[in-house]
């Protein structure tokens, strides 16, 4: 292959140097491959051979990682790769026109790389910009609020040789990392609550924690009632207690900043505005659990935040609140939703494909590299810092009986004021929708695709762990949206993001997606409703991790809350003949080859 010969010269010294930068450690495989991808825009077989030899694994092990992540590529990519977010919110916000503009200006179609290898155009799932859709990643930066005109202008600037950052931000080189982030992406903070988005004092929680015994810190976190904010809602204090109790001389604290649930973007805002608070919370967790090493796992889509976060870390080290007893490194992800799952995230940190781990053992006893590991969400760590500052009782008093404190909601879709809202747990969906200017909502996806799709009769339900649980995403759809188009998109998302480890999720979701297509084409009958339920039940019951255990939710919750939409599309089978079978398309190829019509099925043969 041409590409293979091309990378053989220059010699592999460059690849070996990249490996060397990461200690030639196979646990840093993802970093190595990301660096190679950035340098060469392609990971060839000979590159994989070199890496395998240097870090001491088989080539197939390298290929397993390289072929798993969407942002790594075995085929050559352009010097500038434009990844358009094709989330349903982007689609409903004019994505088609933006696609057409990029395609026209760059002369390539989606999924293609230009002949001169200057540009690649592709789709990518939600990049966390639903409040400013349509959006796209352009190499390491993000373009938001795209229109056809803006897309054309960006493409032109890139063609003239401007870097993506130059093309998007004027004077970007004189700006600080934080200013650059702010110039690229709006925060859209619509409601600042008492805990996170209001005024917060610097390191007050950490100072309090420093004066406390580790067990007392855990007691305080447990007493606050804080539960994980990523979606699963496990009690944070208990998690820490398990990790602290697991016998080991090495422990880890990992912050899950793989905010991949479509429609969620609150962690983006926390990392932009409250990064110190997050690192402070991690440092407190490290003290509580007895960890000296920390990792912030940052989703590949948030690469534009990296420089800013590194600057915050550097400042903390300079201030002496980080580095001595505990330090944090940033692990970049590479385009895999599954890595938001605790075990998969740890696998990814270990330089493996992002596959969930077998449980038990749980990460708190055997996590990263086999050591006890605390994994919490960005928002959870930020809460911790505030709890240690203001006290458990203060936090506990907010919210409801079983859902304490405040929650950051990411609201997007058909509403007047999309953005982030910090509110105490327990308000009704209706109240939230009213704040966001979404009174006309017909359907709301609470908790993203893996959550629940509800209709107007559910708007008085409360946003708590016990009622309408959400990791933060609230996506609003007006009456003019097609529910099944949304469900179909969400199923295609899960098909794309399933890791493939277990049968039901790998195969079952493909079948579920095809079944929804059948409904959309009007080919379904009444039995197909039972089929949707049966297949969903099998996937939920047998899937190995949370992805498959929740992936049928778009189907099941829309079936439950919008049954008429499905019923209206079913037709009884005529004469026992399947509506899915289309004789005309089945014979069209033969008709072309034979250059004649069908005697049996072409009624107008005589004409």
């Amino acid at each position: 292959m041409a590409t293979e010969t091309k990378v053989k010269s220059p010699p592999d010294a460059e690849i070996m140097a990249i490996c060397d930068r990461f200690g030639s450690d196979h646990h840093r495989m993802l970093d190595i491959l990301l660096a190679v991808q950035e340098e060469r825009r392609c990971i060839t077989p000979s590159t994989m051979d070199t890496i395998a030899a240097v870090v001491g694994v088989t080539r197939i092990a390298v290929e397993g990682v390289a072929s798993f992540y969407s942002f790594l590529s075995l085929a050559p990519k352009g010097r500038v790769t434009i990844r358009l977010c094709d989330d349903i919110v982007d689609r409903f916000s004019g994505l088609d026109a933006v696609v057409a503009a990029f395609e026209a200006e760059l002369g390539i179609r989606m999924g293609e790389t230009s002949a001169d290898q200057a540009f690649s155009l592709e789709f990518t799932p939600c990049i966390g910009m639903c409040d400013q859709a349509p959006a796209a990643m352009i190499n390491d930066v993000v373009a938001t609020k795209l229109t056809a005109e803006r897309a054309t202008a960006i493409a032109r600037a890139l063609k003239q040789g401007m870097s993506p950052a130059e093309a998007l931000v004027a004077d970007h080189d004189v700006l600080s990392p934080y200013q650059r982030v702010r110039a690229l992406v709006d925060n859209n903070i619509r409601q600042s609550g008492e805990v996170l988005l209001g005024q917060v004092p610097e390191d007050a929680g950490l100072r309090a924690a420093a004066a406390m015994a580790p067990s007392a810190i855990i007691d305080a976190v447990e007493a606050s009632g804080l539960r994980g904010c990523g979606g699963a809602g496990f009690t944070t204090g208990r998690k820490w207690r398990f990790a602290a109790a697991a016998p080991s001389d090495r422990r880890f604290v990992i912050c899950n900043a793989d905010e991949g649930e479509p429609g969620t973007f609150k962690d983006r805002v926390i990392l932009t505005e409250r990064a110190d608070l997050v690192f402070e919370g991690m440092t407190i967790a490290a003290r509580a659990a007895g960890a000296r090493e920390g990792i912030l796992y940052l989703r590949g889509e948030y690469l534009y935040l990296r420089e800013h976060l590194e600057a915050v870390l550097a400042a903390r080290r300079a201030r002496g609140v980080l580095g001595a007893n505990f330090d944090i490194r940033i692990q970049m992800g590479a385009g895999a939703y599954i890595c938001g799952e605790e075990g998969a995230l740890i696998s990814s940190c270990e330089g493996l494909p992002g596959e969930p781990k077998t449980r038990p053992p749980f990460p708190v006893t055997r996590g990263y590299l086999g050591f006890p590991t605390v994994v919490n969400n960005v928002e959870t760590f930020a809460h911790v810092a505030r709890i240690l500052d203001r006290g458990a009782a203060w936090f506990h008093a907010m919210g409801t009986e079983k859902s304490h404190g405040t929650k950051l909601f990411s609201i997007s879709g058909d509403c007047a004021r999309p953005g982030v809202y910090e509110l105490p747990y327990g308000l009704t969906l209706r109240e939230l929708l009213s704040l966001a200017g979404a009174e006309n909502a017909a359907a709301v996806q609470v908790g993203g695709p893996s959550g629940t799709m509800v209709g107007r009769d559910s708007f008085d339900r409360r946003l708590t762990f016990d009622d309408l649980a959400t990791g933060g995403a609230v996506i609003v759809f007006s009456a003019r949206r097609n529910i099944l188009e949304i469900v179909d998109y969400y199923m295609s998302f899960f098909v794309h993001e399933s890791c493939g480890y277990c049968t039901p999720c790998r195969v079952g979701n493909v079948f579920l997606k095809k079944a929804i297509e059948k409904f959309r084409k009007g080919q379904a009958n009444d039995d197909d409703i039972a089929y949707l339920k049966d297949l969903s039940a099998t996937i939920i019951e047998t899937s190995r991790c949370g992805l498959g255990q929740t992936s049928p939710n778009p189907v099941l919750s829309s079936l439950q809350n919008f049954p008429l939409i499905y019923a209206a599309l079913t037709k009884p089978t005529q004469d026992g003949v399947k509506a899915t079978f289309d004789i005309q398309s089945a014979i069209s190829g033969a008709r072309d080859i034979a250059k004649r019509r069908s005697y049996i099925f072409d009624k107008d043969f005589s004409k």
Partner: protein
Amino acid sequence: MSESFQFRIDGVEVTARPGQTIMEAADAAGIYIPRLCDVEGLRHQGGCRVCTVKSGGRSVSACTQPAEPGLEVENDSAARNRVRRDLVEMLFHEGNHLCPICEKSGNCELQAMAYRLDMTEATRFPWLEPCRDLDASHPDIALDTNRCISCGRCIRASQDMDGKGVFGYVGRGIHRRVAVNGADLAHTDAALADHAMHVCPVGCIIRKGEGFQVPIGERHFDHGLIGHEIEDRARKDGRK
């Protein structure tokens, strides 16, 4: 090592040692829990999910879930077997499993599992019909990944027993599949004597020159349903 303990599978009391999985304890007690990716001698993967049981009300894979004192496990029920049949049918539809032309027929665990789980009704699942190239480059071994069920036995056997790493998974989701450590099988250190070449439950790893040697009627699963060897243990014990 601490004391052994008891738990129940479908109401039958089973003795387990600490550290044993539900499946290991069941095997020892002569209770068969259907499985495809798990095989004696290799570490557990928990990927096919055919061994899913209800344990204390939760669905778990019996091959990875530790047995615990007092557990109530539901295994051989209509509901569990229906779900297992769905999974086996998914595997049939994910690949190209044309039993009449496959040399593994009669010795194939996927096929045998379909018999055991009554996979006979008209399907509701679509056929995915993959179209992957056959790798016949190696003089002694051929690889038809269109028949692969992603059990990963060959991967674990090659790594852990042969110390080689001939096989590995590549890709993600529905595109995930077994691949080899080189351009093709001939460019790996695969050898016919490798343990990895003898653990494939289906007709994906083909040992050349061996096909159809055993006549119909004398093949492994012509002699009984899959799992009968394990169940026979209980019968023998019962007679004693």
